[in-house]
């Protein structure tokens, strides 16, 4: 899983049927200290996160499909947690 920060959301009318009524967030990757890295991803939100929140993102297809309860959904990235604190030694 990867650490990131929510920097925006996506509103979409025309989309793949699986994504109807799914909440999509734009998440930039951060290091353990919370400093933004260059890359980002768009993920389904399962934990009611909002812009500015530090989040935990699962970026793997089989685990993501298990969370959304589908065997054949075209989904790979899911926000699975909101991070309070990270400590690294």
């Amino acid at each position: 899983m990867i650490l990131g920060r929510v920097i925006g959301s996506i509103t979409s009318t025309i989309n793949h049927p699986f994504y109807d009524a799914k909440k999509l967030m734009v998440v930039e990757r951060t290091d353990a200290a919370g400093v933004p890295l260059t890359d980002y991803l768009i993920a389904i939100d399962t934990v009611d996160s909002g812009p500015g929140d530090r989040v935990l993102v699962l970026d793997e297809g089989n685990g993501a499909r298990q969370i959304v309860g589908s065997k054949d959904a075209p989904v790979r990235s899911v926000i699975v947690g909101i991070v309070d604190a990270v400590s690294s030694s």
Partner: protein
Amino acid sequence: MLLGRVIGTVVPCVVYEGLEGVPMLMVQPLDKQGAPKGGPLVAADSTRMAGPGELVYYEGGREAALALDPWFVPVDHTIIGIVDAGGGRP
């Protein structure tokens, strides 16, 4: 998924079985500020409604093929939706 801008269409005359009728679009990947990043790629369009100039989000890898019907097709990028509003940092 990542953000991209549709910059053109691709019309193949012969395609692998299962890909008949699937729209193929040229997509320029974007970074989180919306600026072009890297070279363009060709993506299948699962919405069948995207067109040049539109901001889209697309999936890459194995999940790209899962967005199509039939799903067991040789595709590595597929447009999942068209962005109405939102995105990354302005």
